[in-house]
């Protein structure tokens, strides 16, 4: 029998009842992240059935999706700014947390932010934990060696009530990273290239482990960017083996273990990485030495080219491809670089952490956003905002003519007042370029913070490498 993979180990440790042919496994959940958009109907179901939240202590609640990213000092101000339904959702979240005894990282909290940014930042995300949230980008937490995946609202209710989920074990998929990134090429480019390679359904039914010497050299924030978009390749989740980089990142964070508990945790965490002879159901390898900055040209994250490439020509039978180019108002056989840009969005749970903002600032420093371009920089959390302020990054953004906003999901999904107007082209560091994702009729080019900043400065989709 071959050895266990990281995924197998974490899975096996959380089996409350084993799966059989007739029944899925009952999987215990160590951390449940809750936000205002996918939880209201789950709390209602609890109420209807007279149930309570089983483990409020394992439930972390915040507000990020429908919350505006302009400064808010009172509920009254929020009411004026928000659309009525978004306001209702926020009020409902406050009420649900109060009624069910959950601590909410709400507007007044200095720990508020995008769920997938604050989990790791608070030290709540730890190796070997099972983590779920009513949000597909929960895979982000896999960067620290957790098994983390998105669930629907019915399952949110299951976890609230029982701290467990009925789950069939997914297959495993090893993505080997080899080589060394060139200057100007980032973790975002790695994951865009992977999705381009395996396709938007290449990971369906699988849990990905990113492996290899190149994987172990990546910082935790880089790993988060990569795990974040595992779902865009169809996978249930993405994971990195925990290592010293992971442990250093977690040590000293507010919800991290300390004292002897730290020592115990550490020795457990060290046992988690996949055994050398672990077998995976599927494998792929990417040499990152050859990688260039990547940009999307279509309406899913698999429609991706190097920044200096040309848009491929669709086969005559591929109606989806033609429809995507039509929506994007782009032409096959043409380069995408050089296309005029209307909006640049630097933010989202993919790329809104301090390292992302530093990268963007390194390009904006002493330069200006091109005339006619609106550039927004939206920190992923209140802490990222404070840390960036401590380094004077906002001053750099503002001097360049970019907006510096309050934390939240912002323009990633256009349900909080920030959106890309119809027909406008946005270069965005978020994770989805679906039709209408950033606003009805919005045209999205996904890119790294460096590529986004370079595009803001030049006013056209641009290769960041000349700036480096």
């Amino acid at each position, binding site marked *: 029998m071959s050895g266990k993979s990281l995924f197998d180990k974490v899975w096996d440790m959380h089996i409350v009842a084993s799966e059989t042919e007739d029944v899925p496994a009952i999987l215990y959940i160590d951390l449940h992240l809750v936000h205002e958009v996918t939880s*209201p109907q789950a709390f209602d179901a609890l109420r209807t059935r007279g149930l309570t939240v089983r483990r409020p202590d394992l439930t972390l609640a915040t507000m990020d999706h429908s919350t505006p990213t302009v400064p808010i000092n009172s509920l009254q101000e929020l009411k004026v700014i928000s659309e009525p339904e978004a306001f209702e959702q926020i009020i409902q979240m406050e009420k649900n947390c109060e009624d069910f005894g959950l601590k909410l990282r709400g507007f007044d909290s200095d720990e508020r932010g995008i769920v997938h940014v604050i989990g790791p930042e608070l030290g709540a995300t730890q190796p070997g934990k099972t983590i779920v949230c009513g949000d597909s980008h929960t895979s982000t937490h896999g960067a620290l060696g957790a098994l983390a995946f998105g669930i629907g609202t019915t399952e949110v209710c299951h976890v609230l009530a029982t*701290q467990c989920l009925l789950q069939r074990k997914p297959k495993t998929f090893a993505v080997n990273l080899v080589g060394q990134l060139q200057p100007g090429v980032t973790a975002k480019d790695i994951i865009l290239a992977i999705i381009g390679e395996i396709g938007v359904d290449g990971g369906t039914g699988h849990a990905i482990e990113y492996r290899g010497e190149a994987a172990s050299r990546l910082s935790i924030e880089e790993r988060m960017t990569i795990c974040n978009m595992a779902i865009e390749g169809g996978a249930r989740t993405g994971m990195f083996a925990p290592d010293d980089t992971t442990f250093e990142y977690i040590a000293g964070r507010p919800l991290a273990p300390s004292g002897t508990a730290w020592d115990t945790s550490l020795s457990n965490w060290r046992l988690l990485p996949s055994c050398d002879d672990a077998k995976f159901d599927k494998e792929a390898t990417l040499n990152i030495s050859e990688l260039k900055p990547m940009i999307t040209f279509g309406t899913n994250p698999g429609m991706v080219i190097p920044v200096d490439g040309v848009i491929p020509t669709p086969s005559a039978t591929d109606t989806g491809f033609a429809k995507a180019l039509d929506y994007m108002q782009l032409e096959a056989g043409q380069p995408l670089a050089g296309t005029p840009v209307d909006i640049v969005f630097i933010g989202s749970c993919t790329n809104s952490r301090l390292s992302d903002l530093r990268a963007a600032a390194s390009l904006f420093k002493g330069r200006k956003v091109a005339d006619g371009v609106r550039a927004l920089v939206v920190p992923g959390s209140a802490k990222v905002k404070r840390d960036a302020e401590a380094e004077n990054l906002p001053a750099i953004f503002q001097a360049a003519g970019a907006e510096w906003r309050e934390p939240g999901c912002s323009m990633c999904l256009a349900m909080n007042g920030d959106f890309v107007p119809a027909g406008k082209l946005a270069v965005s560091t978020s994770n989805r370029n679906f*039709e209408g994702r950033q606003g009805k009729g919005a045209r999205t080019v996904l890119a790294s913070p460096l590529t986004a900043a370079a595009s803001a400065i030049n006013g056209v989709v641009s290769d960041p490498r000349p700036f480096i």
Partner: protein
Amino acid sequence: MDPVNKITSRTVVLPLDDVDTDQIIPARFLRTTVREGIGENLFADWRYQKDGSQRVDFILNQPSAQGAEILVAGRNFGCGSSREHAPWALLDQGFRAVISTEIADIFSNNSLKNGLLPVIVDSKTHQWLLDNPNIELTLDVENKQLTLPDGKTVSFPIENFSRYCLLNGVDQLGFLMEFTEVISEFEAQTR
């Protein structure tokens, strides 16, 4: 959840691949705290013009689509976000099943929990269904088979527990709650 066994209906065909949940229901319609009325916004950006009137060229707006309960979709239907609003919207609009060669994981999971049947067929059957829109099919959960108009049957996979829950209208939370003690024991042992 009401039990689901046999579904007999005409099909409506949406042949595009990789239809994502942002198309099924755009995020701006997720600012709801209830489930009712959500079907109105199903495929909103494809179904309606700027002024709110229906686009005649969109398949769901055509007379042939009215009353159809089976959606034949392109490959990788439902990719993208975990929003359960996607199956809710399809159900609210009257759909009871989606057929494709591949359906995204979370969407499929969410669908089963709400009684929307995800049906995976081989690519030959799929192509035939795409080429022959607006035909009557029967989907049989118990026997895991699809019956074509000529009486030919094609089997489809469905996970045992989901099948059991669909056939009996089992509420999965009720099932999980029966394990409360086992869960407590697990917590006592491991934490």
